[in-house]
């Protein structure tokens, strides 16, 4: 059974990616699965690079495979035993594959572009970890197109406004739900400019130029999401569907679930500091659950259910 890779993407910074990843890691370890973990950014620091607020740390136990930059190997409290050096470069040195020898915290900085993550997964899979977890960074998504499934961490840090947040989540879910078509039978339509990447503006222009177009075939879910502001892309697709045009992607990246984090950092002008703030959690969850057909979890409260979902995905 090939090892599955799950990416935890965030829609912005501080939406709970690492908390979610940490949770999945803990559950996997509890179930006797030895995961491999990496990040497309930089995780595990005690204090946020930008806001200065405390951040969750990643705790690992012996046997876990860690792919992190050379300069991060000794940065945490866990003892890591390097297995091999990869040719993947990061600003913190080459990505090293290591096995955890003694429990503790790790700092992850892994491959930060798609081709590098693909390369790493090729190296990781033969080592048969129970699963591979890839932590996202900020709202970055592109490299996660290499994963088998995504959990998206949504949070008030994106918009500290309930209405907007719900609309965004809805649009995002919608974009992920665009169905796939047979790869071979369906070249991308309209023709993308660079490696299957079409911006929303390009798409609009092409569609308006070609009145005959009955079918839009885009490259993959992630590229679709990145083509423009999420709400605008979704609104456009909805509009063209209403005009009778079908929309497909050649490759879907499955959206497994949303997690929602009511936290957001509030800028306090007088102190020139960020402070922790929260949207009303219950209301937030209810609103989002009502708006999207995808499972929505509060990692802190519905953890068990999320893990059940993930396990069924893995099998």
């Amino acid at each position: 059974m090939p090892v599955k890779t799950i990416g935890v993407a965030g829609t912005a910074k501080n939406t709970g990616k690492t908390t979610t990843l940490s949770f999945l890691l803990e559950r996997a370890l509890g179930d006797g699965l030895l995961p491999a973990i990496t990040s497309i950014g930089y995780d595990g620091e005690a204090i946020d690079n930008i806001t200065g607020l405390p951040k969750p740390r990643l705790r690992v136990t012996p046997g876990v495979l860690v792919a992190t930059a050379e300069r991060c190997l000794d940065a945490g409290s866990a003892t890591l035993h390097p297995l091999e050096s990869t040719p993947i470069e990061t600003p913190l040195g080459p990505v090293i594959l290591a096995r955890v020898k003694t429990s503790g915290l790790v700092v992850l900085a892994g491959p930060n572009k798609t081709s590098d993550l693909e390369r790493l997964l090729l190296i990781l899979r033969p080592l048969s970890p129970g699963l591979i977890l890839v932590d996202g960074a900020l709202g970055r998504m592109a490299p996660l197109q290499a994963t088998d499934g995504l959990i998206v961490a949504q949070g008030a840090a994106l918009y500290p406004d309930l209405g907007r947040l719900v609309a965004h989540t809805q649009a995002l879910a919608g974009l992920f739900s665009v169905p796939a078509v047979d790869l071979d039978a369906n070249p991308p339509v309209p023709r993308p400019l660079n490696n299957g990447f079409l911006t929303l503006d390009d798409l609009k222009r092409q569609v308006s130029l070609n009145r005959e177009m009955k079918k839009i075939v885009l490259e993959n879910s992630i590229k679709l999401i990145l083509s423009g502001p999420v709400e605008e892309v979704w609104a456009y697709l909805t509009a063209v569907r209403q005009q009778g045009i079908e929309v497909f992607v050649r490759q879907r990246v499955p959206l497994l679930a949303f997690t929602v984090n009511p936290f957001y950092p509030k800028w306090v002008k007088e102190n020139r500091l960020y402070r922790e703030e929260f949207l009303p959690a219950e209301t937030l969850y209810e609103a989002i659950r009502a708006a999207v057909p995808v499972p929505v979890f509060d990692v802190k409260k519905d953890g068990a259910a999320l893990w059940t979902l993930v396990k069924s995905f893995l099998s």
Partner: protein
Amino acid sequence: MNSATVPNDVKKKVLLAPIDPVHDVGLKMIRRALEQRGHQAILLAPDLPVEEIIREIARHQPDFVFLSRTLGYGVAEILARIIDLADAAGLREKTRFAVGGMAIRPQLAAELGFDRGFGPKTTVEEAVAYVEGRAPTTQDSATNRTKSDLTGGYSYQIKHPVIAQLLAELVRKTAQWAAARTSPGVERAQLRQEMFRLLRKARGWPDQQAGTKVPFGFIPVWGEYPEDKWVKAELVELRRRYTGLTEGAIRSFYEQGLLPAKTRPLTPEELEALNRLAAKNRGESRGLGRGQKPLVFIQYGTGCPFMDIAHIKLAEACGADGVIHFDPSWGARAEGLLEGYLSHEEDGSILTPENLAQIRAALNQGTLWQVRAHRGLNTAETVVLAGELGADLTKINIAYGSLGGGTDPDRLVVDGYYAMKLAASYGLPYDVVTNEELAGVPAHKALAGLLVSAALGISLGGRPILQPLFAYSPEVMIGGQMEDNYVDFNAAKVLALREIIAAPIWPGAPVGFLTQSEDRVQSAVATTLHAMLAASLEVEAVTIASSDEAYSGGPISAAARVDTLRGVREGFRFFGQARIQPTPRAQEWADELVREITEVLEKANQAGTFRDALYQGIFGSQEDGAYPGRAGRGTIRLVG
């Protein structure tokens, strides 16, 4: 930075995108440098929308994209989006993305998904080096650093005819006198040399010029002897004879294994840790940005081997060119040197073969190392240690040692003479300093004494370096020469010496002596300015103190060490090839000094030999504050 054009196969295309609303000076500087090197550099307009930047990247297909932006609200998101779009558009295969700005650290660059981050201290050279796929070079690049010979290119010709004659006469008489005599110090030096020779032969160690990293592991008194019975017997005999020439606490060490108060041997664990420390930190030095001249030396000697190595490493990292060993002051009055890996509870690091070998092992390849023979009863033997253990320089000081260092003039002339012979045989240059000025001896007398020592050394085939003081000495406190500025009188010393002899000059020791205070900033500035004066005068080297050396009463802090090295670096940057201009007073004083030096040398000749003149106070009288020392009095004897 080297502006030569790179070969065609190294030429790159770089797209520079300032995300700030205003143009980025940094990117413009990098563009200029890249173009000078023959690369194609495309600078986009500032503050373009993300999609347009992506379009430009897709259009130009550059090898590198440099984004620059001061971090602020929402900026991280913009940068991350550019990376995301570039990745999605397949633009990350060919193109490397670098981000630069005030708040950029490697961790942030990693979080944003860049290939490389450049922080606020990035130089243009670093950015260009990244594009060219090589390590950045600096003017004083570590890979280019070789140890320079301070004495190279000097003829040692004495230009002043009268002084030349006076010195020649004095040297002749003194050499005749000294060569006929010996002392326990000289004999111990000879025995120590024998011991080294034996051990080298027995253990197959290479000649000292090759420089061994392995400590010699000198035989402790009660420890093991080399396997060869013949060598063992020889060594036992040598040490027996050596012991007979020692006294007091040193003798107790050799006879009973007792160590003097406040010293202790390192434990085996400590020794192992010390070896690891020395090996671990062995790296390459960076200079102070001045090229080769003047070389900047610092002084170390905490008494603790770990602290010494830490200070040395710190100084090297901050750009010091050389380090000078300070031994405990009691060493000058002790007949004999100790052996073993010894730590000292107070100031000064004990001179033992093992201690010195350990220090040597810790030094960076390009760092110059001076082991001072200096002023006491172990002058000659210390030169042996310096020579055998790979020091680059030593210091031999007859006038100061006799008049301010507490050593009997007879003894120091004999030992100093022999030490100079040894130094010449080891090819070891040495400086001669005028610390007696600090006791109150006026510069003209001290410089005269310096010239005699130097001339003596030259006659023996040595390569002395003249070390005038840049200090707020008692002479100027009373005479007022430094009422207006610290420049003229110090410069006068250098000018005077240059008029007299073509020899290398190395102001010390350290410069700015007695101009420092408890204020670290003031002390750092004072040191820096004195060092800049030295640089203006185009001397070969300069010795600087830390900013707390004058007031610490002992231990020197690492921060204070950094203070003055940073200060000197700044000073070099500020001055470049520009100069400090003394007033005409400097030349007036220089002329006066030359006249007065001549008078002193005349009186010295009339007195007889160097030692006669020293005793008679010609090179520094009791009224000046100089007293012929007593240590070693009555210990010299005629040879044969």
